[in-house]
């Protein structure tokens, strides 16, 4: 157990090994560990983000579906309303057309009645005239009594 130059030899070994590890061992490994730590952290945050994104997408999808359903319901509703409206309109149009036709028929009938009445009157007037002519036989001047005869005809 003598103390001797072994002390110095050991110190030199020590310095050499520490130097070696400081240069060639510690830096690459600790750098790799650091990088891996960062990578894992990034991966985890990416996973978190993806999860959040998925949630958002699901929410959005649900919202879209709901909206679409609402829209569809609205469209159906609108279509129903529109159909009703068309039916109503058609009914109205039919009614007015019918009324119009009825009115037209009425007016035609009136016209025809009037015409018939006119003709009848004329015929009666002519008949009366010819009767009167025959009764009066020349005594009566057609020209002189025309006014009176027309008056008579108008009264018929």
């Amino acid at each position: 157990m003598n103390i001797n130059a072994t002390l110095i030899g050991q110190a030199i070994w020590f310095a050499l090994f520490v130097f070696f590890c400081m240069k060639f061992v510690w830096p690459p490994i600790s750098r790799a560990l650091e990088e891996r730590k960062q990578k894992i952290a990034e991966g985890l945050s990416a996973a978190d983000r993806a999860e959040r994104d998925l949630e958002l997408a699901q929410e959005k999808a649900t919202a879209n579906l709901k909206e679409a359903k609402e829209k569809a319901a609205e469209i159906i509703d609108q279509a129903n309303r529109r159909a009703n409206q068309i039916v109503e309109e058609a009914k109205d149009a039919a009614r007015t057309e019918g009324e119009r036709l009825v009115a037209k028929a009425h007016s035609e009938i009136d016209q025809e009645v009037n015409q018939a009445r006119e003709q009848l009157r004329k015929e009666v007037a002519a008949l009366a005239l010819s009767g009167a002519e025959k009764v009066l036989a020349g005594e009566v001047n057609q020209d002189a009594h025309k006014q009176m005869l027309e008056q008579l005809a108008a009264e018929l």
Partner: protein
Amino acid sequence: MAANSAGEYIKHHLGNLTYGKLPEGYVRECHGHAETLTETTWTFACNGNEAKDMGFAAFHVDSLVWSGGLGIIMCLLFWLGARKATAGIPSGFLNFVEIIIEFIDTQVRDSFHGKSKLIAPLSLVIFCWVFLMNLMDLVPVDFIPKTFEWVMVSFFGWSAHEAYFKIVPTTDPNITLGMSFSVMFLIIFLTIKTKGVGGFVGTLALHPFESGNPVVKALLIPVNLLLETIALLAKPVSLGLRLFGNMYAGEFVFILLAAMMGTWQFVGAWPWAVFHILVITLQAFIFMVLTIVYLSMAVEEH
């Protein structure tokens, strides 16, 4: 085993293979006869007395070879791991290296509050290297020394009692103190780096006794200097001797068991070895943590 040969056996196991300088005129008593050296010689010590007489100019070859070899193996393994380092999925061996690195990193972050590129690799080397050196304690005590003895006797013409061989470097105080005093120089270096030379002298001279009065302050300087110098030296001494003491005691128990039980040592040594695994790891860990704490104290402001 007879008491005398058991004593010899233990003594032989506690000796280091020492290569050192013997002065001119030194009387060697190696092979039963005295021999006077005619000139200063660098040689292997053939017994404990010679190793002692070599003084400071000697190397424990076994300690240095085993500590250096284990250190090189450690560096190579880590380097292999570092070459494969990737931010992707780590494979087999890299996993193992990363576990160690992360463990050390956590310890350093917990205890060291400064910023330094040196502390973490330093802690890594201390923990793994000391662990490996301690681990040699679990190799059966005779296995490698007897092999070495056989090789030296068969091929190099040594006599068996010359072939000292200790394979646990941390049972050599030179090894543990060599590391702990390196740590002390790092403490001094870091203190000067963060606080300047004046700051370093200040930490030695102006604490722990302080005073607002300049005269009292000047009077307290010698006292402070004495206390702080002792405190500074006590750190590496206690750090090195703690590791040495624990490992030496553990090794001693193994050697005693081997001396008492011979071939049956495995039965006796097994429970101690199991317990010793704890000591080995714990001592390596304590050496590392205390180093971090001392260095942290060096860079922190008071």
